[in-house]
């Protein structure tokens, strides 16, 4: 377990650094990797003075003002969504659960969209207003979806996904209605809803980072408990797990992570589905490993998705949600088939 932690953790951190460097150098103005690293190291206290400035001022502007905030945000959003996906999957014991398929992302979007539409983004709690509104509506929609899927004390995999679809359609119609009410901000909202990390600046990372750290610490505290959950709720209870409290905490934290991500980036689907599954394939089913690695590799995944989104058709931006859906839906279909086949064998 420790060896695997170091192996996948070390590889992940290395990959993350390489990806950040490459992503910073890619764009309408290509910057050499050495320049990018020079600029980054220069900004570090202590080592900064050791590095001689060998780049034009414009390069530093591009890296520090334009690309780096966006890269950081992509990593944080990806980490939040993947971690949330792993949390939902742990509690619902369902590999198809993810902030998007459960309708929690759409639910969170309602709260966020409402504030943005009425221009209340910064009222009440400053930049925490939108995430908080998103969290509230996200929790409500999660509760509704689970209530809808619940029958005779059990949640079936198909009904859960169907309930998610129902919720998404319903909540989506509310968002569309809200959007149609206002004609000034439509473009901004529509683009945000499709998922985008453009023009966000540093301030959002300030909201995301503490939430991610908090979520990571709490969820990792439940790592062993989620392992027992995988055996079934009753088995977990017999082994000494407080089932209801675990469900409440993990679902709430996962919803919080979803809400903060959505309030920054809009709806980015399937990240929480693809990443934990890939991590599970590589590192095994142990949640003590799965949770932190999902966060790490989720960051890398969304970073690359966003890099594709901004460079592929540059100067035109592809919405990030489009990229992740394009990559994620085939994966979703594959998992669904696999689950069906497993279900049939189980019956026979």
């Amino acid at each position, binding site marked *: 377990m420790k060896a695997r932690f170091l192996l996948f953790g070390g590889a992940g951190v290395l990959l993350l650094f390489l990806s950040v460097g490459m992503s910073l150098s890619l764009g309408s103005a290509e910057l050499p990797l050495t320049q990018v690293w020079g600029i980054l190291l220069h900004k570090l206290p202590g080592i900064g003075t050791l590095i001689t400035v060998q780049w034009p001022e414009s390069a530093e502007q591009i890296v520090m003002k334009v690309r780096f905030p966006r890269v950081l945000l992509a990593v944080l959003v990806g980490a939040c969504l993947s971690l949330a996906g792993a949390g939902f999957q742990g509690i619902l014991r369902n590999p198809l659960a993810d902030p998007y398929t459960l309708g929690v992302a759409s639910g969170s979007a309602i709260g966020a969209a409402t504030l943005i539409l009425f221009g209340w983004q910064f009222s009440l709690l400053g930049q925490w207003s939108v995430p908080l509104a998103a969290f509230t509506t996200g929790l409500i929609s999660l509760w509704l979806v689970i209530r809808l899927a619940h029958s005779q004390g059990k949640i079936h995999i198909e009904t859960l996904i169907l309930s998610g679809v129902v919720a998404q359609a319903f909540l989506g119609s509310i968002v569309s209605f809200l959007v149609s009410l206002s004609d000034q901000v439509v473009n901004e909202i529509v683009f945000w809803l499709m998922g985008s990390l453009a023009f966000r600046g540093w301030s959002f990372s300030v909201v995301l980072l503490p939430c991610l750290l908090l979520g990571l610490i709490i969820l990792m*505290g439940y790592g062993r408990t989620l392992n027992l959950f995988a055996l079934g709720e009753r*088995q977990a*209870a017999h082994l*000494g797990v407080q089932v209801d409290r675990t469900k409440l905490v993990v679902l709430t934290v996962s919803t919080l992570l979803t809400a903060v991500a959505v309030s920054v980036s809009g709806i980015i689907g399937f990240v929480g589905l693809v990443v934990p599954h890939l991590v599970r394939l590589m590192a095994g089913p142990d949640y003590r490993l799965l949770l932190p690695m999902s966060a790490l590799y989720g960051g890398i995944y969304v970073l690359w998705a966003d890099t594709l989104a901004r460079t592929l058709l540059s100067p035109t931006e592809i919405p990030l949600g489009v990229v992740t859906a394009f990559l994620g839906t085939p994966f979703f279909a594959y998992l669904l088939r696999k689950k069906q086949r497993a279900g049939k064998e189980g019956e026979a």
Partner: protein
Amino acid sequence: MIRVVDVWKSYNGKSVLQDIAFEVKPGEFFGIIGPNGSGKSTLLKLLSAVEAADRGQIWLRGKQAEAHQRKDLAAWLAVLQQEPLPSIGFSVREVVEMGRFPYQSWLGTERGDSAPLIDGILQTLGLTELQHRTLEKLSGGEKQRVGLAKVMAQEPELLLLDEPTTFLDIGYQIQLMDTVHRWQRAEQATVVAVLHDLNLASLYCDRILLLDKGRQIGVGKPGELLREDLIYEVYGIRPIILDHPFHHLPQMLLRSAKDS
């Protein structure tokens, strides 16, 4: 050990258990039998404190069931469920180690080293060779043994078995019951088992509780309960009851209608 006082339970207005009262003494092998829908499994859920009774009390270890902390209870009471463990990618050893959860701090550490205990249990159940395989690669009987190893790792004083032989063939059934019986003797533990098979119940149980439609028909030694009149009253059949030539316990032979 266990004291059940006038317990009633119903689901959605439908009564499942009515006025159940009995005691289980330390070191006993106690059986719960009865036809389908007689409330056996519900009674076991109440005894394991995952559900609460509507009326009446269940005393476990001198305390009411609801008053126990889940984790403290798990270090004292273990449950072997009827359903085989789901295949979730963990290895045999990892699953057995999950039985140590009640003894671990929130960081996952234990006061002593549990590795020798786990090794011993794997050895006893013949799982040593399989310990690094994942559950996916095991047969039904092997999985049931892993389940048993996991509850043994809990080191409980009281073990509840919920129809543990349901998915096993006759060879594995006897093997499982023998293993549980040996373990019980060695650990001086108490066992409460819901059993379908009356002959198995007669062979292994010191005392038996017979349930029918949620009512308690009687509690007593196998010889007192496996009587033709009681079996007819509860199951609606008239079996031939013989004395086991070796164990001197009642065993039933079924009678079919085809030659009468």
